[in-house]
């Protein structure tokens, strides 16, 4: 990896020559830089969740023995997030979702479906310019990418709910119960939608079920991707569920039927990535406490979607 000179370190840290005490401490900090593997080992010890034998969590790119200059956490390690990490001189990226476009997270595209005939393996997929460019960018910048999903969302309290409620300004609610339900100042569904859109920086990903004039006081949060069972449990106890990704043949139809039946209920789907993103800000804050010698920053993915006129 590229060694960071003392001069560069000072620049990165944004410390002028006048800040002598910090400058003097800088080389020592650098010398003690933990490797990506050491940081991961510390995470495993401190996460408070027994490490699962079957998990998507693990290194997806780069050399685990790389000394870490800075950590970026994100919901999804897109090219633009990786570019921002490089700009911030962070070389360990901790991502909630895959890097290489699938659960398998393989740095090469999935092989073609059509085999050469019965019993022959599928042909190797041709090189894909997007996979190739991302692989090369990671290698060129000596980045290490580690996925942190199964164990992060298994924590109690749920950090995804913590992050989303904080972003929505619901964290200070005194009436929070079961960690998923919050009181909002009595409002209407359409006013809540405008507020959520603004606070989450949503561009075009929001979709709503329910009467815009519905009075809303109790809100439930279902970040990430959740099955019907979660909505069946939560929606009857609140006026509105703000969800990341729910199946349209499940929770969306259930919410629609509730509304048809005259129930004062609503559902706001904000998108999976948008719903998970604030939970990775919580992760950056937590990493600051267990890896204090390295700076951890959250980099938002933003709303992938827009909506045409």
């Amino acid at each position, binding site marked *: 990896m590229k060694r960071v000179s003392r001069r560069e370190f000072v620049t990165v840290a944004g410390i002028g020559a006048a800040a002598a005490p910090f400058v003097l401490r800088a080389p020592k900090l650098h010398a003690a830089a933990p490797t990506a593997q050491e940081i991961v080992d510390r995470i495993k010890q401190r996460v408070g969740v027994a490490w699962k034998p079957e998990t998507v969590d693990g290194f997806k790119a780069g050399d685990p023995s790389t000394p870490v200059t800075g950590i970026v956490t994100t919901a999804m390690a*897109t090219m633009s997030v990786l570019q921002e990490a490089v700009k911030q001189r962070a070389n360990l990226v901790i991502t909630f979702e*895959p890097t290489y476009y*699938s659960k398998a997270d393989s740095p090469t595209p999935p092989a073609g479906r059509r085999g050469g005939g019965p019993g022959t393996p599928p042909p190797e997929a041709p090189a894909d310019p997007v996979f190739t460019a991302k692989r090369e960018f990671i290698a060129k910048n000596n980045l290490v990418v580690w996925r942190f999903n199964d164990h992060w969302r298994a924590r109690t309290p749920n950090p995804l709910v913590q992050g989303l409620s904080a972003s929505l300004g619901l964290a200070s609610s005194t009436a929070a119960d079961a960690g998923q339900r919050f009181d909002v100042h009595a409002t209407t569904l359409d006013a809540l939608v405008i507020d959520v859109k603004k606070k989450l920086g949503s561009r075009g990903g929001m979709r709503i079920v329910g009467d815009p004039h519905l009075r809303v006081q109790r809100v439930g949060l279902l970040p990430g991707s959740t099955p019907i069972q979660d909505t*069946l449990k939560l929606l009857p106890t609140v006026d509105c569920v703000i969800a990341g990704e729910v199946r349209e043949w499940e929770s969306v139809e259930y919410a629609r039927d509730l509304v048809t039946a005259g*129930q004062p209920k609503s559902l706001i789907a904000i998108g999976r990535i948008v719903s998970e993103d604030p939970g990775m800000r919580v992760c950056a804050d937590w990493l600051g406490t267990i890896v204090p010698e390295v700076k951890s920053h959250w980099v938002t993915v933003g709303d*992938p979607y*827009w909506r045409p006129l």
Partner: protein
Amino acid sequence: MAALTAGEVVARIKSHLGFAWRENTYRDTFKFGGPDTEVKGIATTMFCSMGAIEQAAAAGLNMIIPHEDTYWNDRDDLSVVDADPLYRTKVELMTKHQIVIFRMHDHMHAQRPDFTWVGLTRVLGLTSDQETAPQSHRFTIPETTLEALASDFKKRLGDKAIRVVGDPRAKVRRVQVGVGYATPSVASPDIDVVVSGEQQEADGALDSPEYVLDATSLGIAKGWIMLGHNVSEEQGMLEMAQWVKSFTPEVPVQLIRSGEPFWAPK
């Protein structure tokens, strides 16, 4: 003349399909009522929503052929929902109107042509002379921008909650159409845009949103247009109604639209 029963309608569906019924389907079965229910009229619909049931009943149609599930889970597993009061409400509604429900999903997709694609491409204005090969669902259109294409699709479908990933100015002309949750991968080098119904955003077989975001960062023209599950497959329920009508001449048959469930913020 003997009254038409739901069982007879299903028997005619099976004999007109052109291929053997797949007995192992858990989807294409009676979901409410049964073969002996007398049929006054038939409604096809995308989702068997309570609104669609009410509309069908008001039109004097008591047999409903939905493409999707009735009880908010794909297997229509009642153990998932029967503790919920809304399940009881829905059952009461169907009982009151003597409704019989028979789902057509797996066999609709196995039919040739698959009406879901026929209906969607009809409304999108994609024509067979633009299709690269019959049933390829891949169309070459005059070059346009992703924004203009998405805007045109939105208007044609009345799709309020359409969502798009990609550079609005990206020049596109090779369009791959998908329906429902059968959304094709956007990574194929032969296509610029995928337009489909619904797909998970991440952690799947190929996560198109992330792929398109990265392609956009790299200046590669790619787009992903999500119409919503209902909007993408509802169109083909018109073709389904016409097909069912062709062999049930003694009762009225019509499409009842469950309609897009969403609205979008301004």
